[in-house]
């Protein structure tokens, strides 16, 4: 896999100093997920207020055993979703998953509301690593459902 220098930098920054990492209490849901391709795993906790689509995500905490992509991805995700509603998180998931699976390297930069997730654009050529990037999103969906 090849990352452009700029994206590599962003990913390394999250990897070296992950945001919101650790498992915190209290929490409303905890999910453990394996990445079947590599056997890595993620434990994700969510604290939320309210129910259903409108639930507000108050905290996301996690412990991850995985590659730099998976670690950076959960760090970026925590940045993006804390303070948002479950519905907004779901929309972000859908949007990022679609962009990752699109495989159109030419299709310019990712929209700015995706924040540092834009750095994962290069991953979209690499099916195995897409799972690394989406592991945390899948866990979040499960934790919110």
């Amino acid at each position: 896999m090849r990352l452009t220098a700029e994206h590599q930098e962003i990913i390394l920054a999250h990897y070296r100093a992950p945001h919101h990492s650790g498992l915190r209490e209290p929490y409303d849901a905890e999910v453990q997920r394996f990445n079947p391709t590599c056997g890595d795993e993620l434990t994700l906790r969510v604290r939320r207020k309210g129910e259903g689509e409108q639930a507000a995500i108050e905290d996301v905490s996690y412990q991850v055993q995985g590659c730099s992509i998976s670690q950076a991805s959960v760090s970026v995700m925590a940045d993006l979703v804390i303070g948002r509603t479950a519905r907004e998180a779901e929309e972000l998931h859908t949007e990022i998953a679609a962009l990752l699976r699109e495989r159109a390297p030419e299709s310019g930069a990712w929209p700015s509301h995706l924040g540092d997730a834009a750095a994962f654009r290069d991953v979209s050529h690499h099916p195995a690593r897409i799972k690394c990037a989406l592991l945390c999103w899948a866990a979040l969906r499960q934790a919110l459902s």
Partner: protein
Amino acid sequence: MSAMARTLDPRQIRADFPILHRTVGGGERLVYLDSGATSQKPVQVLDAERTFAETSNAAVHRGAHQLAEEATEAYEQARGQIAAFIGVHPAEVVFTKNATEGINLVAYAMSNAATSGDAAARFRLDPGDEIVVTEMEHHANLVPWQELCRRTGATLRWLGVTDEGRLDLSRLDEVITPRTRLVAFAHQSNVLGTINPVPPIVARAAEVGALTLLDACQSVPHAEVDFHAHGVDFAVFSGHKMLGPSGVGVLYGRRELLEVMPPFLTGGSMIEVVTMTESTFAAPPQRFEAGVPMVSQAVGLAAAVRYLTSVGMERITAHERLLTEAALGTLSAIDGVRILGPTTTADRGSAVSFVVDGVHPHDVSQVLDAHGVAVRVGHHCAWPLHRRLGVPASVRASFYLYNELADIEPLAAGILEAQALFGATAPGPERSGGTVACA
């Protein structure tokens, strides 16, 4: 003899492998160190398949016209050449789609023995009976036996692995007991490179009347192997790991056993008489080859066997030993690199797996890939072994006849670069053995 005298010249070999001349990424030379997963194929193999498709393609064992006869002849000739390569009789060679199917074939035949009459008693499993494997098995030689146990109520037991990555034979007599019905074990570990000692295991199995199955996926491609000499009852290997096409593998079964073993896949070409209510089955090997088989792939595998033979298996083994020795030396010398398994070439093949302290294997491979170096990362389908060794995953470099000493330098350089980029030297949380606890 003369084959042994000359050492192998990988540059000459590489000329036969078109894919090795491509570049990857931004024009890097391809350094293919993933032959343990699948090997590349020489033009001789590709041409054999193509020629078959363009001249003699037909359904085998089913037609009476000239093409069908030529195809049948080519298929059976392939069987004969492959049998000779592994020292067995052609009727002992069953073509499967891969080694995994071969192992499943034996496992299902054993559960089918329950409803197959007295002739198959040898294969029957009752609750309380035991199957023995080892802790270093590939999933292909573990999960089918777990499932067989689940179907029959038998119990799975296993031989452990020492810290050095050797089979722990100290408890051999405790693990293999008169309750053992079958012992399935790898000839050579796909992770550690460890070559397991066949004689003591076969001897102990014989003592208690257990069958033996050798997973020879990682030995047959790399060394001269004679299944009769080894005295195993069954053995499996895959064509794609030995210069042959994908989609073809081999199950070897001792003749007297295949004769009485119940069928697995059923359908055309494996029957004797079929009525609406019941069927009887053909003699082996046909009994175990239901449906139109992978003919052109068998023809391709025979070409691979001819290629390997013409190079000389002993020369290939010796060449790989050279590479392994160099790789072990170079990698051990890197601070923070830990080799899994034997660190000398004694009883060891050419798969070299390692972890880089503080760097996830996938991050190592990402850097290597960016430099054109293709290695495998993950648990290599040997998850329990990785658990035993206390690492979730590893990086594996595996060598074959087309690799050269020059392939080791970019491997080492990539590891150093990965350490610089992702390593423990960088700021960030504590890291060990590729595992990152973010708390």
